Structure formats: structure tokens, C-alpha cells
């Protein structure tokens, strides 16, 4: 940084803040809409469903006959006792009104902007290319995963990240292809600084929803801010190009999972609570790993 002198550094600093906003956009696809993806495993993003008019009434009647009425009479079934002993994941939500507002903002962002643009993009660009672009950006973020493995003393995983990067950058032509998947021993992790903080014993803090970026927590927000320094795209200049790259990546990512968010909403009664809970549960699992 000294290289640039003070004034330029300040300008750079301002630029970095703006980059941060860009970074938020950049992250939107993987975080705002990936939780539903994991919530509902395996649904198609590319297929259009042809479903019947009535939702299987005959079969459901058949299903009903399986239920024994005695179960419904039991005021204190075994599972309640079991459940009482289970670990319950809770998250404070002091910014509830802000968060809910941002949840709706992201929802509209998806339906009014991201989805239509990504749908058009999908119609023009073949799937192979879109997957390639997705892989390229993933590969480019190796430093984030690598450094966080080191910070968590996961040296074997760090070695795997490095090896994957080498294989995918060369044999996989700058990361567009993913030949590393042919080496099952090179498992890919998904380490980030939020998880690193968690392994140091720092709790979630509270829930927070960012516009463009989606669900997060206080801890994970600091984590993302740290990770930004490890992402090559954050250093692209000028700003317009960086924003452009970021936006492009988001559209590309969305094009690969159109339908996922819709499915999530279809299954949820309270989508806001559902997403919050899914985010926290998923993060908890990643921290455990």
C-alpha cells in the first residue's frame, strides 16, 4: 500500500468501500439463493414441470389410512421427550424489521430483475459455457478457501485446495473445466472467514439480511469483509469493470438455478423464518465440518 502514497491510498480506500458494495452484489447469488437450494435437495433448475390438476387425492386418502388414531390421542408422545433433549439452534434477530424489509427487497430483486435477465441469458448461452464460467470464478477464489483452511489449522484440506487449483488452472484451462473432480481424494471444502471465526469460539452474534447479499450474521459479515481481501475480483480496476464482472457472475450463477428459490417458497409457510433457520442450520453444519 505504501507504494501508492497517502492520497492515492485514501482514494483506494474509498474505492474499496465501493468494491464492498459490488462484492455484496457479487455474493448475492451464492448466498441469497443458495440456501433454498440446500433446503430442497435435487430439484431441477432447468425443467418446467407438467403437473396434474389435482394433487394426488386418491393416494393421499390411501396414505391417511396408515395413520393410527391412537397416535393422535397421545398427549405426551415419546418424540416430545426426545426432542426436549435435542440441541435447538436459535439466533437473535434484533434487526427484525430491517431484515424483513431486506428479505422482501431481495425477493423482488430476484423476481423482477435477476430472474428475467438470467432467463434471457440462459436462452442464449449454452449450459456448458455457463457451468464453465461458474467454475472459473470458483477456481479464482481459491485464496479464500486456502487461507481459511490454514487459519483453522486444516493443513490437509489446504493442500487439497492448492492441488485442485493447480489441476483446474492447467488441465482445466484457467478453471473453466473441473478435472479435479476425477480425483476423489482431493475433496473440496467450502471454508470462509466466518467459519474461521467460529472455530475461534466467536458466536453468530445476530441475524442480519443484506440487500443483494442475502442472509448473514454479524460474525459472517465480518468474515465476508475479511474474505474480500482474498478475492482477486476485488482488485480489478477501474470500478466499472469490477462491477460489471460482479454483475455478470451473479447473472450467470442465477441462470444455473432458476426455479430453486421458487421451490423454496412453494414449500414454506413463513419464508422469512424458513430462510433464517435454513441459513443458520447450514452454517452450523459447515462450522462443524
Amino acid at each position, binding site marked *: 500500500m505504501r507504494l501508492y502514497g497517502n492520497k492515492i491510498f485514501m482514494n483506494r480506500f474509498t474505492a474499496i468501500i465501493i468494491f464492498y458494495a459490488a462484492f455484496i452484489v457479487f455474493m448475492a447469488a451464492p448466498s441469497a439463493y443458495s440456501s433454498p437450494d440446500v433446503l430442497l435437495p435435487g430439484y431441477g433448475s432447468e425443467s418446467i414441470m407438467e403437473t396434474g390438476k389435482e394433487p394426488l387425492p386418491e*393416494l393421499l386418502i390411501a396414505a391417511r389410512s396408515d*395413520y393410527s388414531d391412537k397416535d393422535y390421542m397421545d398427549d405426551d408422545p415419546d418424540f416430545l421427550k426426545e426432542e426436549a433433549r435435542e440441541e435447538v*439452534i436459535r439466533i437473535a434477530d434484533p434487526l427484525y424489521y430491517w431484515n424483513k424489509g431486506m428479505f422482501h427487497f431481495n425477493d423482488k430483486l430476484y423476481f423482477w430483475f435477476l430472474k428475467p435477465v438470467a432467463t434471457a441469458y440462459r436462452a442464449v448461452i449454452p449450459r456448458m459455457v455457463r457451468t464453465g464460467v461458474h467454475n472459473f470464478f470458483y477456481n479464482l477464489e481459491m485464496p479464500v478457501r486456502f487461507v481459511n483452511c490454514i487459519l483453522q489449522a486444516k493443513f490437509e484440506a489446504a493442500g487439497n485446495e492448492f492441488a485442485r487449483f493447480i489441476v483446474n488452472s492447467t488441465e482445466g484451462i484457467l478453471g473453466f473445466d473441473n478435472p479435479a473432480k476425477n480425483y476423489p481424494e482431493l475433496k473440496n471444502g467450502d471454508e470462509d472467514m466466518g467459519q474461521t471465526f467460529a472455530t475461534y469460539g466467536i458466536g453468530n452474534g445476530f441475524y442480519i439480511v443484506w440487500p443483494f447479499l442475502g442472509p448473514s450474521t454479524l460474525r459472517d459479515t465480518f468474515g465476508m469483509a475479511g474474505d474480500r481481501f482474498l478475492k482477486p475480483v476485488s482488485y480489478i480496476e477501474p470500478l466499472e469493470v469490477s462491477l460489471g464482472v460482479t454483475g455478470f457472475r451473479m447473472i450467470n450463477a442465477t441462470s444455473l438455478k432458476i426455479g430453486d428459490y421458487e421451490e423454496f417458497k412453494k414449500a414454506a409457510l413463513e419464508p422469512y423464518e424458513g430462510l433464517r433457520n435454513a441459513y443458520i442450520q447450514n452454517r452450523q453444519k459447515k462450522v462443524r465440518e
Partner: protein
Amino acid sequence: MKKAVIIFILIAFVPAFLYADMRPMETIKIPIDEGMKILTDPKYKDPSLKKVQREKIWDVVRKVFDFTELGGRTLATNWKNFSPDQRKEFTEVFSEILGNAYLDKIQGAYKDEKVEYVGKEMITDSKAIVKTKIVRKKGEILVDYSMKLKDNSWKVYDVQAEGISLVQNYRSQFNEILVKESPDDLIKRLHKKLEEQQKTDKK
């Protein structure tokens, strides 16, 4: 001779439930594999047969789920505030909603996908977690099934996808509703949700 002794010992000491019914992994394998077979069956290629295919899959899948326990667990202590009739109605509507939401997804996506059985974890003699992995082009998804031995057969009472438990997720949503509203209100909302789902299905 030695072999015979070992076999005798094995037979004598293996718990009875192993004979009485299949073990959890095998129990879940059958509906999944059968479901996959229906999914990939070329005779359902015609879009007009989607509904038939869907009912077939549901028929296979529902046998291995214990919706009473699954639904009850999402209600948790709220269960006590529900009358037996409300519990019954709740379970019925909720399982329809789950069936609707998940069958769509299964029908849409599993076509080029594979399910691998990663392993099994016995928690107690009558509880187990079966770990599976859905392998798809976009990447893998870990799906764990929590199963319980009930009346001599293993039934699923929770599904965890990438660490997200279905039961815990719905519990958080139902809790949010039941803090402010009555059991009847929740059931009403479930009916409304079902209607919504049916409307989007028609489109």
C-alpha cells in the same frame, strides 16, 4: 466346522429385530431405488403422463415416512395444545404440502442424478441415521434420513439436506405462527398454502 460355529454364534446373538424386518439402510434403499426407476422409466416421457408418474412415486415414498411423527416433531411442545382431531387434520394437510413441494422437485431434477449410500449410524437399537449423497452435475448434496423402528419397521421422521433439518426448519416457521395464532389458524393457513400450491401446479 469352525465356520459353522461362527455362523451359529452370529445367528444366536444378532438381535431379533434384524430378522423381524429389514435394517434402516435397506429400508430406505428400496423406495429410493424404486422411485429412481420410475423417474428414469422412458414410458413416462410424455408430459401427459407426469401425473401418473408422480402418483406412483408418492405411493412408493410415503410408505417409508412416518408423517405423524414428522408432523408432531415440527409442532414440538405445541402438540399439547392441539386436540386429537386438530393433530390429525394438521398431519394430513402438512403431509400433502410436503408431498406437493418435494415431488415436483424430485420429478424435475433427479433425472440425470444418482443417489449414493454413504453409510449408516445407529444411534440406539431403534434409531438410526442413513447418510446418502445425491450426485448431480452442479455438485453433490448430502441428504441424511433420520429413521426410527416402529411396529417392526423402519420409518423416516426427519430429513437433513446439507445440515438443514426439515423438521427443525418447519418447527421454526410453525413456532412463529403459533406464538400469535391458534392451532386452528395454523391449520387454516396450511389449507391456504395447499390451495396456492395447487394453483401454481395448474399453471
